[in-house]
């Protein structure tokens, strides 16, 4: 397990994600998520010796491969429709079929409601292998002497974490501000958060977050621009997806005993909220609210996965503004049912976040408590700065 391959996979994944966010035509929309997905299969199967991570990678590969092929089928139908639309076939059934295929294809990537089966397995398998080997690394000095070990870099990054949180959050909010301006002027939709993720965070966090960000960015582009005339149909489809994912994600998360699975299911629920933002669209700043929520989601999940200590009370607080904006935009457009379900499931999600905090305070996990004291300071810093700058930019 040399370090050269590891860096190569991480960088290529990031490259794929960035291409996806800046995609302007159908070929890029196919090739970029493929590039991203292939490298993330390799990342998830990086620890070859661990059987659980192998199994998780297998599931991820098969599901990801199936979804990519469904997506390419849709792209082919989409291109046919574009070719035929010159001969005036506006409301043909071909458009509806193409729409269904692309919703299924993108649905697998983003994992909203019905396609969420592989997510908890993936997170559990990967996190298990990474974190058990990481714990061995910290406790065993003979491994530490190997200079080219990827865990050496990761542990160094985690130990010198606090100042970077501060600068990272400041920079992130500055870049966020410029992006919101671009969205409101309907310019190109690019996110460059991934470029800084790779320098600072651990791999599972990276994978989980960037795939969501890239997929949701591409989803907004795909649903809004080519399918503009049939917007009623994909509104209905996305509403169904959002409801299913919010309900399923939050309800199943209550019954989980493994923390990694709980985090996976909570991330499924978050995607439901993000989909509301996609549905709302450009009027009333729907895209802006989605980006805001994505930002909170990024910082929340990165911290979570990076040290398995959930900044748990804080997501309901820091992410509160993001959710508020999302629900406010949804309410203004008229999605009353969706927003009410979102509110209910947010209340439910607070329950399992608080459960983690309770575990944290009672200090049952012995190996985490040294890290807890290190990281308890950093969430306060990061979320405060993000909140203040968000409020500032919204004015």
């Amino acid at each position, binding site marked *: 397990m040399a370090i050269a391959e590891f860096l190569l996979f991480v960088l290529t994944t990031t490259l794929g994600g960035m291409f996806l966010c800046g995609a302007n035509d159908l070929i890029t929309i196919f090739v970029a998520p493929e590039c991203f997905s292939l490298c993330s299969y390799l990342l998830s199967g990086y620890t*070859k010796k661990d059987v659980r991570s*192998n199994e998780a990678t297998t599931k991820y590969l098969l599901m990801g491969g199936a979804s990519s092929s469904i997506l390419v089928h849709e792209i082919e139908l989409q291109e046919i429709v574009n070719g035929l639309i010159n001969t005036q076939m506006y409301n043909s059934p071909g458009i509806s079929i193409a729409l269904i295929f692309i919703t299924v294809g993108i649905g697998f990537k983003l994992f909203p409601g019905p396609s969420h089966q592989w997510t908890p397995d993936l997170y559990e398998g990967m996190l298990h292998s990474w974190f058990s080997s990481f714990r061995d690394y910290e406790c065993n000095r003979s491994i530490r002497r190997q200079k080219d070990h990827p865990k050496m870099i990761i542990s160094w990054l985690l130990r010198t974490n606090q100042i970077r949180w501060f600068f990272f959050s400041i920079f992130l909010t500055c870049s966020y501000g410029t992006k919101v301006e671009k969205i409101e002027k309907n310019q190109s939709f690019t996110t460059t958060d991934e470029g800084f993720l790779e320098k600072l965070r651990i791999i599972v966090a990276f994978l989980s977050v960037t795939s969501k960000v890239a997929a949701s960015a591409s989803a907004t582009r795909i649903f809004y621009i080519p399918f503009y005339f049939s917007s009623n149909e994909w509104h209905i489809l996305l509403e169904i997806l959002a409801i299913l994912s919010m309900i399923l994600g939050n309800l199943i998360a209550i019954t989980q005993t493994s923390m990694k699975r709980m985090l996976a299911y909570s991330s499924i629920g978050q995607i439901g909220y993000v989909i509301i933002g996609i549905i709302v669209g450009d009027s009333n700043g729907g895209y802006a609210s989605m980006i805001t929520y994505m930002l909170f989601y990024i910082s929340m999940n990165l911290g979570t996965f990076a040290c398995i200590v959930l900044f748990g009370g804080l997501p309901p607080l820091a992410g509160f503004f993001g959710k508020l904006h999302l629900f406010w935009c949804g309410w203004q457009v008229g999605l009353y049912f969706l927003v009410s379900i979102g509110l209910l499931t947010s209340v439910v999600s607070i329950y399992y976040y608080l459960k983690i905090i309770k575990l944290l305070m009672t200090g049952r996990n012995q190996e985490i408590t040294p890290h807890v004291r290190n990281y308890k300071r950093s969430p306060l810093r990061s979320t405060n700065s993000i909140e203040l700058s968000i409020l500032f930019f919204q004015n």
Partner: protein
Amino acid sequence: MMLEHILVLSAYLFSISIYGLITSRNMVRALMCLELILNAVNINFVTFSDFFDSRQLKGNIFSIFVIAIAAAEAAIGSAIVSSIYRNRKSTRINQSTLLNK
């Protein structure tokens, strides 16, 4: 040759390979079905570009991209299959019961 015949062929291939992907117990067979899906889509692309786009051949170019990506995906899938085989000495999918709910 009529357009519908070729479209029926590619739809048939697509559905057979999705069925094979879902219900195959062997990992290598699942990878082969994945390749078949992408090939079915390629047939569709080439057919449509032949019938509607004789000047620019956009569908043909797209199918070249799809071929390249299918090859890369097969390579990565084979790497994962070989790492599983080294750990377990078998490639059956229904033995993967470690990560349960």
